[in-house]
Protein backbone atom coordinates (compact mmCIF):
# COMPACT_ATOMS: atom_id res chain seq x y z
CA UNK A 1 0.00 0.00 0.00
CA UNK A 2 1.39 3.33 -1.04
CA UNK A 3 -0.56 5.60 1.25
CA UNK A 4 -2.13 3.85 4.24
CA UNK A 5 -4.22 5.73 6.75
CA UNK A 6 -1.60 5.42 9.50
CA UNK A 7 0.96 7.26 7.42
CA UNK A 8 -1.35 10.15 6.74
CA UNK A 9 -0.11 12.32 9.62
CA UNK A 10 3.48 11.68 8.64
CA UNK A 11 2.58 12.66 5.13
CA UNK A 12 1.13 15.92 6.39
CA UNK A 13 4.36 16.68 8.27
CA UNK A 14 6.40 15.92 5.19
CA UNK A 15 4.14 18.16 3.20
CA UNK A 16 4.84 21.07 5.59
CA UNK A 17 8.59 20.50 5.36
CA UNK A 18 8.57 20.55 1.60
CA UNK A 19 6.42 23.68 1.32
CA UNK A 20 7.09 24.46 -2.30
CA UNK A 21 6.39 20.89 -3.34
CA UNK A 22 3.19 20.85 -1.41
CA UNK A 23 0.74 21.54 -4.18
CA UNK A 24 2.18 18.87 -6.42
CA UNK A 25 2.53 16.46 -3.51
CA UNK A 26 -1.06 16.99 -2.47
CA UNK A 27 -2.12 16.19 -5.97
CA UNK A 28 -0.07 13.02 -5.98
CA UNK A 29 -1.11 11.88 -2.53
CA UNK A 30 -4.75 12.53 -3.21
CA UNK A 31 -4.45 10.61 -6.45
CA UNK A 32 -2.79 7.73 -4.68
CA UNK A 33 -5.14 7.78 -1.75
CA UNK A 34 -8.18 7.95 -3.94
CA UNK A 35 -7.19 5.06 -6.06
CA UNK A 36 -5.94 2.92 -3.20
CA UNK A 37 -8.95 3.60 -0.98
CA UNK A 38 -11.29 2.96 -3.83
CA UNK A 39 -9.81 -0.41 -4.57
CA UNK A 40 -10.77 -1.54 -1.06
CA UNK A 41 -14.32 -0.36 -1.58
CA UNK A 42 -14.43 -2.55 -4.68
CA UNK A 43 -12.85 -5.45 -2.77
CA UNK A 44 -15.47 -5.12 -0.02
CA UNK A 45 -18.12 -5.30 -2.72
CA UNK A 46 -16.59 -8.45 -4.14
CA UNK A 47 -16.40 -10.04 -0.69
CA UNK A 48 -20.00 -9.15 0.04
CA UNK A 49 -21.17 -10.71 -3.24
CA UNK A 50 -19.08 -13.77 -2.49
CA UNK A 51 -20.87 -14.15 0.88
CA UNK A 52 -24.19 -13.70 -0.89
CA UNK A 53 -23.27 -16.41 -3.39
CA UNK A 54 -22.51 -18.82 -0.51
CA UNK A 55 -25.92 -18.10 0.97
CA UNK A 56 -27.70 -18.65 -2.35
CA UNK A 57 -25.80 -21.93 -2.85
CA UNK A 58 -26.97 -23.08 0.58
CA UNK A 59 -30.58 -22.12 -0.19
CA UNK A 60 -30.52 -24.06 -3.45
CA UNK A 61 -28.76 -27.07 -1.89
CA UNK A 62 -31.50 -27.19 0.75
CA UNK A 63 -34.41 -26.74 -1.65
CA UNK A 64 -35.56 -30.26 -0.75
CA UNK A 65 -34.90 -30.12 3.00
CA UNK A 66 -38.19 -30.34 4.91
CA UNK A 67 -39.24 -27.05 6.56
CA UNK A 68 -35.99 -25.34 5.53
CA UNK A 69 -36.24 -21.55 5.68
CA UNK A 70 -34.22 -19.51 3.20
CA UNK A 71 -31.54 -17.08 4.31
CA UNK A 72 -30.80 -13.64 2.98
CA UNK A 73 -27.63 -11.61 3.33
CA UNK A 74 -28.23 -7.99 4.17
CA UNK A 75 -25.69 -5.37 3.19
CA UNK A 76 -25.32 -1.75 4.10
CA UNK A 77 -23.06 1.12 3.32
CA UNK A 78 -20.36 1.39 5.91
CA UNK A 79 -18.71 4.74 6.51
CA UNK A 80 -15.36 4.81 8.26
CA UNK A 81 -16.06 8.24 9.67
CA UNK A 82 -18.82 6.73 11.77
CA UNK A 83 -16.35 4.28 13.22
CA UNK A 84 -13.72 6.69 14.46
CA UNK A 85 -13.59 10.06 16.12
CA UNK A 86 -12.40 12.97 14.05
CA UNK A 87 -9.03 13.02 15.85
CA UNK A 88 -8.49 9.36 15.15
CA UNK A 89 -9.20 9.69 11.48
CA UNK A 90 -6.57 12.42 11.27
CA UNK A 91 -8.32 14.50 8.66
CA UNK A 92 -10.89 17.13 9.40
CA UNK A 93 -14.42 16.27 8.54
CA UNK A 94 -15.67 18.68 5.96
CA UNK A 95 -18.13 20.93 7.79
CA UNK A 96 -21.48 21.71 6.28
CA UNK A 97 -21.07 24.92 4.32
CA UNK A 98 -21.90 26.49 1.01
CA UNK A 99 -18.69 25.08 -0.41
CA UNK A 100 -19.59 21.57 0.56
CA UNK A 101 -23.19 21.69 -0.39
CA UNK A 102 -23.59 17.99 0.17
CA UNK A 103 -21.59 16.99 3.27
CA UNK A 104 -19.68 13.90 2.31
CA UNK A 105 -19.11 12.57 5.86
CA UNK A 106 -16.47 10.09 4.81
CA UNK A 107 -18.60 8.69 2.03
CA UNK A 108 -15.49 8.59 -0.13
CA UNK A 109 -14.02 6.12 2.33
CA UNK A 110 -17.02 3.83 2.59
CA UNK A 111 -17.33 0.16 1.94
CA UNK A 112 -19.99 -2.54 1.88
CA UNK A 113 -20.56 -4.32 5.15
CA UNK A 114 -22.42 -7.59 5.57
CA UNK A 115 -24.85 -6.37 8.16
CA UNK A 116 -26.38 -9.70 8.93
CA UNK A 117 -28.11 -12.83 7.81
CA UNK A 118 -31.84 -12.83 8.09
CA UNK A 119 -33.97 -15.92 7.80
CA UNK A 120 -37.25 -15.65 5.97
CA UNK A 121 -39.85 -17.51 8.03
CA UNK A 122 -42.56 -17.61 5.38
CA UNK A 123 -44.69 -20.73 5.09
CA UNK A 124 -43.44 -23.62 2.95
CA UNK A 125 -45.91 -25.66 0.93
CA UNK A 126 -47.37 -28.81 2.50
CA UNK A 127 -47.24 -32.18 0.79
CA UNK A 128 -49.17 -35.23 1.93
CA UNK A 129 -47.01 -38.15 3.07
CA UNK A 130 -49.71 -40.24 4.81
CA UNK A 131 -47.20 -41.12 7.53
CA UNK A 132 -48.97 -40.53 10.89
CA UNK A 133 -45.62 -39.51 12.40
CA UNK A 134 -45.19 -36.60 9.97
CA UNK A 135 -46.66 -33.46 11.51
CA UNK A 136 -46.46 -30.24 9.47
CA UNK A 137 -46.94 -26.78 10.95
CA UNK A 138 -49.06 -24.24 9.09
CA UNK A 139 -48.56 -20.80 10.57
CA UNK A 140 -46.30 -19.40 13.21
CA UNK A 141 -44.91 -22.06 15.59
CA UNK A 142 -41.92 -24.27 16.37
CA UNK A 143 -41.72 -27.72 17.97
CA UNK A 144 -39.66 -28.03 21.13
CA UNK A 145 -37.03 -30.77 21.06
CA UNK A 146 -34.52 -31.85 23.70
CA UNK A 147 -31.08 -32.22 22.11
CA UNK A 148 -27.82 -33.06 23.90
CA UNK A 149 -27.07 -29.30 23.82
CA UNK A 150 -30.32 -28.39 25.55
CA UNK A 151 -33.80 -27.51 24.33
CA UNK A 152 -33.85 -26.55 20.65
CA UNK A 153 -36.61 -25.53 18.27
CA UNK A 154 -37.51 -26.94 14.87
CA UNK A 155 -40.25 -26.73 12.26
CA UNK A 156 -39.32 -30.09 10.75
CA UNK A 157 -42.12 -32.38 11.93
CA UNK A 158 -40.81 -35.53 10.23
CA UNK A 159 -40.71 -37.57 13.43
CA UNK A 160 -40.07 -41.24 14.07
CA UNK A 161 -40.10 -43.56 17.09
CA UNK A 162 -37.09 -44.80 19.03
CA UNK A 163 -36.82 -48.32 20.45
CA UNK A 164 -38.57 -47.16 23.65
CA UNK A 165 -41.60 -46.02 21.63
CA UNK A 166 -40.95 -42.32 22.22
CA UNK A 167 -41.64 -39.72 19.55
CA UNK A 168 -38.24 -38.46 18.38
CA UNK A 169 -36.74 -36.45 15.52
CA UNK A 170 -34.75 -38.16 12.77
CA UNK A 171 -31.62 -37.60 14.88
CA UNK A 172 -33.26 -39.43 17.80
CA UNK A 173 -33.92 -36.39 20.01
CA UNK A 174 -37.22 -36.54 21.95
CA UNK A 175 -40.06 -34.16 21.09
CA UNK A 176 -41.46 -32.35 24.13
CA UNK A 177 -45.04 -31.89 25.32
CA UNK A 178 -46.30 -28.71 26.92
CA UNK A 179 -45.42 -28.17 30.57
CA UNK A 180 -48.30 -29.20 32.79
CA UNK A 181 -46.79 -27.69 35.92
CA UNK A 182 -43.85 -25.32 36.40
CA UNK A 183 -40.38 -26.85 36.70
CA UNK A 184 -41.64 -30.18 35.36
CA UNK A 185 -38.66 -32.50 34.67
CA UNK A 186 -38.04 -32.78 30.93
CA UNK A 187 -38.19 -36.62 30.60
CA UNK A 188 -41.79 -36.55 31.87
CA UNK A 189 -42.62 -34.33 28.88
CA UNK A 190 -41.58 -36.96 26.29
CA UNK A 191 -44.33 -38.32 24.04
CA UNK A 192 -44.55 -42.07 24.70
CA UNK A 193 -46.49 -43.86 22.01
CA UNK A 194 -45.17 -47.40 22.59
CA UNK A 195 -46.62 -50.09 20.40
CA UNK A 196 -49.96 -48.30 20.09
CA UNK A 197 -51.10 -48.17 16.45
CA UNK A 198 -53.63 -45.37 16.87
CA UNK A 199 -51.79 -42.11 17.31
CA UNK A 200 -53.33 -38.84 16.30
CA UNK A 201 -52.48 -35.16 16.65
CA UNK A 202 -55.23 -32.56 16.54
CA UNK A 203 -54.65 -29.38 14.60
CA UNK A 204 -53.94 -27.59 17.89
CA UNK A 205 -51.40 -30.22 19.00
CA UNK A 206 -53.51 -32.36 21.34
CA UNK A 207 -52.17 -35.92 21.39
CA UNK A 208 -54.44 -38.92 21.35
CA UNK A 209 -52.63 -42.21 21.90
CA UNK A 210 -54.98 -45.17 21.70
CA UNK A 211 -58.18 -43.90 23.31
CA UNK A 212 -56.54 -41.46 25.69
CA UNK A 213 -55.71 -37.80 25.42
CA UNK A 214 -52.22 -37.69 26.92
CA UNK A 215 -51.23 -34.07 26.51
CA UNK A 216 -50.38 -31.37 24.05
CA UNK A 217 -47.29 -30.91 21.91
CA UNK A 218 -45.28 -27.89 22.97
CA UNK A 219 -45.46 -25.30 20.21
CA UNK A 220 -43.73 -22.01 20.79
CA UNK A 221 -42.86 -18.84 18.95
CA UNK A 222 -41.33 -15.45 19.65
CA UNK A 223 -42.48 -11.95 18.86
CA UNK A 224 -39.21 -11.19 17.10
CA UNK A 225 -38.40 -14.17 14.86
CA UNK A 226 -34.80 -12.97 14.56
CA UNK A 227 -34.27 -14.48 18.00
CA UNK A 228 -34.15 -17.93 16.34
CA UNK A 229 -30.70 -18.62 14.97
CA UNK A 230 -30.00 -21.61 12.75
CA UNK A 231 -27.87 -24.36 14.22
CA UNK A 232 -27.96 -26.92 11.39
CA UNK A 233 -29.86 -30.25 11.32
CA UNK A 234 -33.05 -28.15 10.97
CA UNK A 235 -32.68 -26.87 14.55
CA UNK A 236 -32.81 -23.30 15.82
CA UNK A 237 -31.28 -21.95 19.01
CA UNK A 238 -31.90 -18.65 20.74
CA UNK A 239 -29.76 -15.65 19.94
CA UNK A 240 -28.69 -14.01 23.16
CA UNK A 241 -28.39 -10.51 21.74
CA UNK A 242 -32.10 -10.15 21.07
CA UNK A 243 -34.39 -9.90 24.03
CA UNK A 244 -37.53 -11.64 22.86
CA UNK A 245 -38.68 -14.53 25.05
CA UNK A 246 -40.32 -17.63 23.57
CA UNK A 247 -44.04 -17.79 24.24
CA UNK A 248 -46.76 -20.36 23.58
CA UNK A 249 -47.78 -20.19 19.94
CA UNK A 250 -51.41 -19.50 19.14
CA UNK A 251 -51.62 -18.77 15.43
CA UNK A 252 -50.95 -22.17 13.92
CA UNK A 253 -52.58 -25.33 12.67
CA UNK A 254 -51.00 -28.78 12.61
CA UNK A 255 -51.46 -31.23 9.77
CA UNK A 256 -50.79 -34.85 10.63
CA UNK A 257 -49.60 -36.94 7.69
CA UNK A 258 -48.07 -33.96 5.88
CA UNK A 259 -44.58 -32.58 5.47
CA UNK A 260 -43.68 -28.91 5.08
CA UNK A 261 -41.40 -28.33 2.11
CA UNK A 262 -38.70 -25.67 2.12
CA UNK A 263 -39.74 -22.09 1.30
CA UNK A 264 -36.93 -21.77 -1.26
CA UNK A 265 -38.16 -20.44 -4.58
CA UNK A 266 -35.74 -21.74 -7.19
CA UNK A 267 -36.71 -19.05 -9.72
CA UNK A 268 -35.85 -16.15 -7.43
CA UNK A 269 -32.70 -17.92 -6.21
CA UNK A 270 -31.51 -18.39 -9.78
CA UNK A 271 -32.23 -14.74 -10.59
CA UNK A 272 -30.39 -13.66 -7.46
CA UNK A 273 -27.52 -15.90 -8.44
CA UNK A 274 -27.19 -14.36 -11.89
CA UNK A 275 -27.37 -10.89 -10.38
CA UNK A 276 -24.76 -11.73 -7.74
CA UNK A 277 -22.43 -13.25 -10.29
CA UNK A 278 -22.69 -10.15 -12.53
CA UNK A 279 -22.17 -7.67 -9.68
CA UNK A 280 -19.16 -9.70 -8.66
CA UNK A 281 -17.79 -9.39 -12.20
CA UNK A 282 -18.45 -5.63 -12.16
CA UNK A 283 -16.49 -5.21 -8.93
CA UNK A 284 -13.65 -7.08 -10.61
CA UNK A 285 -13.82 -4.52 -13.43
CA UNK A 286 -13.67 -1.72 -10.86
CA UNK A 287 -10.60 -3.31 -9.28
CA UNK A 288 -9.04 -3.56 -12.75
CA UNK A 289 -9.82 0.09 -13.43
CA UNK A 290 -8.14 1.17 -10.19
CA UNK A 291 -5.22 -1.03 -11.06
CA UNK A 292 -4.91 0.68 -14.45
CA UNK A 293 -5.05 4.08 -12.76
CA UNK A 294 -2.26 3.04 -10.43
CA UNK A 295 -0.35 1.71 -13.41
CA UNK A 296 -0.60 5.11 -15.05
CA UNK A 297 0.56 6.78 -11.84
CA UNK A 298 3.54 4.53 -11.37
CA UNK A 299 4.65 4.17 -14.98
CA UNK A 300 3.56 7.36 -16.78
CA UNK A 301 3.16 10.27 -14.32
CA UNK A 302 6.38 9.56 -12.47
CA UNK A 303 8.40 8.70 -15.54
CA UNK A 304 11.87 10.27 -15.38
CA UNK A 305 12.77 12.10 -18.53
Amino acid at each position, binding site marked *: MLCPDANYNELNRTRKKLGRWSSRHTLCSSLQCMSMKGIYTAVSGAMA*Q*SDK*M*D*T*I*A*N*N*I*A*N*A*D*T*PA*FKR*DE*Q*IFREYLTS*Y*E*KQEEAVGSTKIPDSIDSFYPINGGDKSYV*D*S*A*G*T*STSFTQGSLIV*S*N*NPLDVAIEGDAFFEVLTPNGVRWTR*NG*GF*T*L*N*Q*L*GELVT*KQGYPVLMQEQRPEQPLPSRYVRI*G*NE*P*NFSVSNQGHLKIGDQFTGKLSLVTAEDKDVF*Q*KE*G*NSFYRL*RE*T*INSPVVQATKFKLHQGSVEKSNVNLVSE*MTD*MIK*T*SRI*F*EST*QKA*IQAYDQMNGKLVNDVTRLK
Partner: protein
Amino acid sequence: MIKSLHTAATGMQAQQTNMDTIANNIANTGTTGFKKTRAEFEDLLYQNIKEPGTATGLNAVSPTGVQVGLGVKTAATQKDFSLGSLQITNRDLDVAINGKGFLQMQKSDGTIAYTRNGELHRSADGRIVDFNGNVLQPEIAIPADASDVTISPEGEVSVLTTGSQVPQVIGQIELATFVNPTGLKAVGGNLFLATPASGDPVVGNPNQGHYGALGQRELESSNVNIVEEMVNMITTQRAYETNSKVIQASDQMLQALTHLR
Protein backbone atom coordinates in the same frame (compact mmCIF):
# COMPACT_ATOMS: atom_id res chain seq x y z
CA MET B 1 -17.31 -18.66 -3.19
CA ILE B 2 -15.15 -21.69 -2.65
CA LYS B 3 -17.77 -22.44 0.01
CA SER B 4 -20.59 -22.12 -2.51
CA LEU B 5 -18.83 -24.61 -4.79
CA HIS B 6 -18.76 -27.21 -2.02
CA THR B 7 -22.28 -26.32 -0.88
CA ALA B 8 -23.60 -26.92 -4.39
CA ALA B 9 -21.65 -30.19 -4.49
CA THR B 10 -23.43 -31.39 -1.34
CA GLY B 11 -26.69 -30.38 -3.01
CA MET B 12 -25.87 -32.46 -6.07
CA GLN B 13 -24.89 -35.42 -3.88
CA ALA B 14 -28.17 -35.20 -1.98
CA GLN B 15 -30.20 -35.08 -5.20
CA GLN B 16 -28.19 -38.05 -6.47
CA THR B 17 -29.21 -40.02 -3.36
CA ASN B 18 -32.78 -38.90 -3.95
CA MET B 19 -32.63 -40.12 -7.56
CA ASP B 20 -31.14 -43.48 -6.50
CA THR B 21 -33.99 -43.93 -4.03
CA ILE B 22 -36.61 -43.06 -6.64
CA ALA B 23 -34.98 -45.40 -9.18
CA ASN B 24 -35.15 -48.25 -6.66
CA ASN B 25 -38.81 -47.48 -5.91
CA ILE B 26 -39.72 -47.49 -9.60
CA ALA B 27 -37.69 -50.64 -10.27
CA ASN B 28 -39.61 -52.41 -7.50
CA THR B 29 -43.09 -51.29 -8.57
CA GLY B 30 -43.98 -54.89 -9.35
CA THR B 31 -42.31 -56.45 -6.30
CA THR B 32 -44.78 -58.15 -3.96
CA GLY B 33 -44.88 -56.55 -0.50
CA PHE B 34 -42.31 -53.89 -1.43
CA LYS B 35 -42.39 -50.71 0.65
CA LYS B 36 -41.28 -47.46 -0.94
CA THR B 37 -38.41 -45.44 0.49
CA ARG B 38 -38.19 -41.70 0.85
CA ALA B 39 -34.88 -39.85 1.22
CA GLU B 40 -34.95 -37.02 3.75
CA PHE B 41 -32.53 -34.16 4.02
CA GLU B 42 -31.34 -31.72 6.61
CA ASP B 43 -29.11 -28.65 6.49
CA LEU B 44 -25.47 -28.87 7.53
CA LEU B 45 -23.87 -26.73 10.21
CA TYR B 46 -23.73 -22.97 9.85
CA GLN B 47 -20.55 -20.95 9.82
CA ASN B 48 -20.74 -17.81 11.90
CA ILE B 49 -18.79 -15.22 9.94
CA LYS B 50 -19.74 -12.45 12.30
CA GLU B 51 -21.06 -13.21 15.75
CA PRO B 52 -24.19 -11.29 16.68
CA GLY B 53 -23.40 -8.55 19.13
CA THR B 54 -20.06 -7.48 17.67
CA ALA B 55 -19.42 -3.76 17.66
CA THR B 56 -19.95 -2.25 14.25
CA GLY B 57 -19.44 1.37 15.14
CA LEU B 58 -19.03 3.81 17.94
CA ASN B 59 -22.36 3.10 19.56
CA ALA B 60 -23.66 0.32 17.37
CA VAL B 61 -23.67 -3.44 17.72
CA SER B 62 -24.71 -5.85 15.04
CA PRO B 63 -28.05 -7.31 16.13
CA THR B 64 -28.08 -10.39 13.97
CA GLY B 65 -24.62 -11.46 12.83
CA VAL B 66 -23.69 -13.13 9.59
CA GLN B 67 -24.24 -16.83 9.12
CA VAL B 68 -23.52 -18.86 6.03
CA GLY B 69 -24.83 -22.40 5.69
CA LEU B 70 -22.56 -25.10 4.36
CA GLY B 71 -24.99 -27.30 2.46
CA VAL B 72 -27.19 -30.32 2.86
CA LYS B 73 -26.87 -33.96 3.86
CA THR B 74 -29.11 -37.00 3.72
CA ALA B 75 -30.67 -37.35 7.16
CA ALA B 76 -32.48 -40.62 6.63
CA THR B 77 -33.93 -42.92 4.05
CA GLN B 78 -37.29 -43.76 5.48
CA LYS B 79 -39.45 -46.75 4.58
CA ASP B 80 -43.10 -45.93 4.11
CA PHE B 81 -45.01 -48.89 5.57
CA SER B 82 -48.42 -47.87 4.27
CA LEU B 83 -50.49 -50.71 2.86
CA GLY B 84 -50.13 -51.64 -0.80
CA SER B 85 -53.19 -52.67 -2.79
CA LEU B 86 -54.29 -56.29 -2.53
CA GLN B 87 -54.54 -58.51 -5.58
CA ILE B 88 -56.47 -61.75 -5.90
CA THR B 89 -54.19 -64.55 -7.08
CA ASN B 90 -56.24 -67.72 -6.35
CA ARG B 91 -53.16 -69.56 -5.15
CA ASP B 92 -53.61 -71.47 -1.88
CA LEU B 93 -50.33 -70.38 -0.32
CA ASP B 94 -50.55 -66.69 -1.16
CA VAL B 95 -51.17 -64.67 1.98
CA ALA B 96 -51.61 -60.91 2.25
CA ILE B 97 -51.41 -59.09 5.58
CA ASN B 98 -54.25 -56.61 5.69
CA GLY B 99 -52.86 -54.24 8.31
CA LYS B 100 -49.85 -54.21 10.60
CA GLY B 101 -47.41 -57.07 11.05
CA PHE B 102 -44.65 -59.06 9.42
CA LEU B 103 -44.31 -62.76 8.68
CA GLN B 104 -41.32 -64.31 10.43
CA MET B 105 -38.85 -66.23 8.30
CA GLN B 106 -35.86 -68.22 9.49
CA LYS B 107 -32.91 -67.76 7.17
CA SER B 108 -30.46 -70.57 6.45
CA ASP B 109 -28.02 -69.10 9.02
CA GLY B 110 -30.65 -69.36 11.75
CA THR B 111 -31.47 -65.65 12.11
CA ILE B 112 -35.08 -64.51 11.95
CA ALA B 113 -35.97 -62.05 9.21
CA TYR B 114 -39.30 -60.29 8.68
CA THR B 115 -41.27 -59.87 5.47
CA ARG B 116 -44.54 -58.51 4.10
CA ASN B 117 -44.30 -60.80 1.08
CA GLY B 118 -46.78 -63.61 1.64
CA GLU B 119 -45.93 -65.57 -1.49
CA LEU B 120 -45.34 -68.88 0.28
CA HIS B 121 -44.37 -72.28 -1.08
CA ARG B 122 -44.18 -75.87 0.05
CA SER B 123 -40.69 -77.29 0.38
CA ALA B 124 -39.75 -80.88 -0.51
CA ASP B 125 -40.22 -81.91 3.14
CA GLY B 126 -43.64 -80.24 3.34
CA ARG B 127 -42.65 -77.17 5.37
CA ILE B 128 -43.98 -73.73 4.39
CA VAL B 129 -41.11 -71.63 2.98
CA ASP B 130 -40.69 -68.52 0.87
CA PHE B 131 -39.25 -68.56 -2.64
CA ASN B 132 -35.71 -68.36 -1.26
CA GLY B 133 -36.24 -71.40 0.98
CA ASN B 134 -36.42 -69.40 4.23
CA VAL B 135 -38.68 -71.27 6.64
CA LEU B 136 -41.86 -69.67 8.01
CA GLN B 137 -41.82 -69.46 11.83
CA PRO B 138 -43.39 -71.13 13.76
CA GLU B 139 -42.76 -74.06 11.43
CA ILE B 140 -45.80 -75.58 9.76
CA ALA B 141 -45.53 -78.86 7.87
CA ILE B 142 -48.21 -79.74 5.32
CA PRO B 143 -48.84 -83.51 5.14
CA ALA B 144 -47.97 -85.10 1.79
CA ASP B 145 -51.56 -86.27 1.19
CA ALA B 146 -53.16 -82.92 2.06
CA SER B 147 -55.35 -81.47 -0.64
CA ASP B 148 -57.11 -78.28 0.30
CA VAL B 149 -55.09 -75.78 2.39
CA THR B 150 -57.14 -73.12 4.19
CA ILE B 151 -55.67 -70.15 6.05
CA SER B 152 -58.16 -68.26 8.21
CA PRO B 153 -57.96 -64.47 8.77
CA GLU B 154 -56.77 -65.38 12.30
CA GLY B 155 -53.81 -67.31 10.85
CA GLU B 156 -55.06 -70.83 11.50
CA VAL B 157 -53.79 -73.23 8.82
CA SER B 158 -56.01 -76.28 8.18
CA VAL B 159 -55.95 -78.98 5.52
CA LEU B 160 -58.19 -81.72 4.19
CA THR B 161 -56.41 -85.08 4.10
CA THR B 162 -57.51 -87.91 1.89
CA GLY B 163 -60.32 -89.96 3.35
CA SER B 164 -61.29 -87.24 5.83
CA GLN B 165 -64.19 -84.85 5.48
CA VAL B 166 -63.24 -82.67 8.47
CA PRO B 167 -60.52 -80.02 8.05
CA GLN B 168 -57.59 -80.68 10.33
CA VAL B 169 -55.68 -77.76 11.94
CA ILE B 170 -51.95 -78.17 11.34
CA GLY B 171 -50.55 -74.88 12.58
CA GLN B 172 -50.90 -71.21 13.43
CA ILE B 173 -49.22 -68.36 11.53
CA GLU B 174 -47.97 -65.60 13.84
CA LEU B 175 -47.19 -62.01 13.00
CA ALA B 176 -44.53 -59.72 14.48
CA THR B 177 -44.91 -55.97 14.92
CA PHE B 178 -42.35 -53.36 15.90
CA VAL B 179 -42.54 -50.18 17.90
CA ASN B 180 -40.62 -48.41 15.12
CA PRO B 181 -40.92 -50.34 11.85
CA THR B 182 -39.07 -47.56 10.00
CA GLY B 183 -36.02 -48.59 12.04
CA LEU B 184 -35.96 -52.04 10.38
CA LYS B 185 -33.02 -52.81 8.12
CA ALA B 186 -33.85 -53.92 4.59
CA VAL B 187 -31.52 -56.73 3.52
CA GLY B 188 -32.95 -57.52 0.08
CA GLY B 189 -35.04 -60.51 -0.94
CA ASN B 190 -38.06 -58.67 0.55
CA LEU B 191 -36.63 -59.28 4.02
CA PHE B 192 -36.04 -56.95 6.97
CA LEU B 193 -33.92 -57.47 10.07
CA ALA B 194 -34.65 -56.12 13.54
CA THR B 195 -32.25 -53.40 14.80
CA PRO B 196 -31.86 -51.55 18.12
CA ALA B 197 -33.79 -48.69 16.49
CA SER B 198 -36.75 -50.84 15.52
CA GLY B 199 -37.03 -52.41 18.97
CA ASP B 200 -37.75 -56.08 19.67
CA PRO B 201 -40.51 -57.85 17.77
CA VAL B 202 -43.87 -58.21 19.50
CA VAL B 203 -45.42 -61.49 18.32
CA GLY B 204 -49.15 -62.15 18.21
CA ASN B 205 -51.92 -63.83 16.26
CA PRO B 206 -53.35 -62.13 13.16
CA ASN B 207 -56.64 -60.22 13.35
CA GLN B 208 -56.25 -59.59 17.09
CA GLY B 209 -55.46 -56.25 18.67
CA HIS B 210 -53.53 -54.18 16.20
CA TYR B 211 -52.32 -57.14 14.14
CA GLY B 212 -53.62 -57.22 10.56
CA ALA B 213 -55.87 -59.97 9.30
CA LEU B 214 -54.54 -62.52 6.83
CA GLY B 215 -56.12 -62.77 3.41
CA GLN B 216 -55.65 -66.10 1.67
CA ARG B 217 -55.28 -66.25 -2.12
CA GLU B 218 -54.31 -62.58 -2.15
CA LEU B 219 -51.00 -60.79 -2.43
CA GLU B 220 -50.02 -57.29 -1.36
CA SER B 221 -48.55 -55.38 -4.27
CA SER B 222 -45.94 -52.69 -3.70
CA ASN B 223 -47.11 -49.35 -2.31
CA VAL B 224 -45.15 -47.41 -4.94
CA ASN B 225 -47.23 -44.74 -6.63
CA ILE B 226 -45.77 -44.30 -10.12
CA VAL B 227 -47.24 -40.82 -10.64
CA GLU B 228 -45.76 -39.59 -7.37
CA GLU B 229 -42.39 -41.14 -8.20
CA MET B 230 -42.37 -39.55 -11.66
CA VAL B 231 -43.13 -36.12 -10.21
CA ASN B 232 -40.41 -36.62 -7.60
CA MET B 233 -38.04 -37.65 -10.36
CA ILE B 234 -38.71 -34.48 -12.33
CA THR B 235 -38.21 -32.20 -9.32
CA THR B 236 -35.07 -34.11 -8.34
CA GLN B 237 -33.58 -33.78 -11.82
CA ARG B 238 -34.33 -30.06 -11.90
CA ALA B 239 -32.90 -29.52 -8.42
CA TYR B 240 -29.78 -31.38 -9.56
CA GLU B 241 -29.50 -29.09 -12.58
CA THR B 242 -29.99 -25.98 -10.45
CA ASN B 243 -27.17 -27.06 -8.15
CA SER B 244 -24.93 -27.59 -11.16
CA LYS B 245 -25.77 -24.03 -12.28
CA VAL B 246 -24.56 -22.77 -8.90
CA ILE B 247 -21.27 -24.55 -9.52
CA GLN B 248 -21.06 -22.94 -12.96
CA ALA B 249 -21.81 -19.47 -11.58
CA SER B 250 -19.25 -19.88 -8.79
CA ASP B 251 -16.75 -21.08 -11.36
CA GLN B 252 -17.43 -18.00 -13.49
CA MET B 253 -16.89 -15.78 -10.47
CA LEU B 254 -13.59 -17.54 -9.77
CA GLN B 255 -12.68 -17.07 -13.42
CA ALA B 256 -13.39 -13.34 -13.10
CA LEU B 257 -11.02 -13.36 -10.13
CA THR B 258 -8.23 -15.10 -11.98
CA HIS B 259 -8.64 -12.72 -14.91
CA LEU B 260 -7.92 -9.76 -12.62
CA ARG B 261 -4.27 -10.05 -13.55
